[in-house]
């Protein structure tokens, strides 16, 4: 990755973070859920540039997200986004090996893992049933995955999901 691309990615990151601020939220069991488009951005970075860059970018995006939205849990998003960054970077290694379906399944699993860890930290010490916890994780993952699907179809010509 040369400097020009690096600067482009940084600018793109800032733009995506700004968009993330204006993403509408919805309510589920009185829990405010905001679809995470930063994770979608990380998916593309992982797919095109590999593990190293996506882990670092994931960490800085996570830290920024923590700093803006949840100072009391500072580090939670950084942790989850770095961890799944490693997984998303794997997409680049198997770009020409995995079929679209396997890739989609893998990405969905990673999204689930991301929200599983995140909500596990967030709900620690909060009296909430396991069923609601699983539902929230699934819904959040599904929403993010659906957005990825739409974006991929609209702007990337099914680069990740079908080819």
């Amino acid at each position, binding site marked *: 990755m040369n400097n020009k691309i690096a600067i482009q990615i940084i600018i793109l990151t800032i733009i995506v973070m700004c968009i993330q601020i204006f993403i509408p939220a919805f309510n589920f069991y009185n829990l405010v859920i905001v679809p995470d488009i930063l994770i979608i951005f990380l998916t593309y970075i992982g797919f095109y540039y590999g593990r*190293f860059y996506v882990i*670092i970018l994931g960490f800085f995006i996570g830290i920024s997200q923590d700093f803006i939205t949840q100072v009391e849990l500072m*580090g939670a998003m950084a942790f989850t986004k*770095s*961890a799944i960054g490693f997984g998303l970077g794997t997409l680049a290694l198997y770009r020409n090996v995995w079929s679209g379906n396997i890739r989609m399944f893998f990405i969905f699993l990673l999204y689930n893992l991301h929200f599983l860890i995140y909500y596990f*930290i967030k709900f620690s010490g909060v009296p909430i049933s396991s069923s609601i916890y699983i539902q929230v994780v699934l819904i959040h993952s599904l929403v993010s995955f659906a957005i990825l699907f739409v974006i991929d179809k609209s702007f990337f010509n099914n680069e990740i999901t079908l080819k």
Partner: protein
Amino acid sequence: MPRPRVPFINKDVLTLLLTLFLSVSLLFTRTSPQIRQLKFQLSQLANTIAYPVIWYKEVFIIREKNKLLKEQLIQFTLMNSELESYHQENVRLKEMLNFTINQPLHFITANVVNHNFGLPTNSITIDVGAKDSIVKNLTVMDENGLLGKTIQVGDHAALTQLITDKNFRVSIRIGQDRALGLFIPTHGKYGLLEGVRKSMPLTEGEIAYTSGISEIYPPNIPVARVVSIKRDENNPFQHIVVELVGSLENLDYVFVIL
């Protein structure tokens, strides 16, 4: 010559470990309830994982303790055999001195069925009588100490004069020298010890026991605890105020010594 490479330890893994370490460090600097709970859960998990190690260490500690206990057991066995020989010697000496052996107390348990505080005699009625081998003038006590004696016996009930009754008297022994005295009730749970000579050293909190002189009460039953002591120059005896050790409030069960 190329340096040998360690498999799986590459730039990506190192970056991941570094970022994870930084994130966790940041996360654990927080003091929010979620993080505190998370720390607690992690410590429990660590405890569970470390359990076999702790168990393994404890096995060694138990082995050490077992060794020590075995040594102590040998010492106690030797001491016990020594004590046994002293006991045999004591029995023999008592026989030589014509001492009678104190038999352990035999008692029956009785329910208190009536409190007669209004009558001239401060008394209670218990649900055991002549059919239960109860006779007149038997000692009545609770688990703490003396309560009174039986004064009238029916077939299935007995009237018991309480220690708080004005006419109640009991001979006692107190102090290291086991000085003789007489317990006299005054009011409530308080009473006086009469006849304890002034030279007898006593302290507050000491317990007076039945002397065994009387035919009614067996020896060494706790009667009262010393509350205050006064020594008057003109009086050869101490003025000792005591309180009863037997519990007279909420009497439910008593023991009658046969």
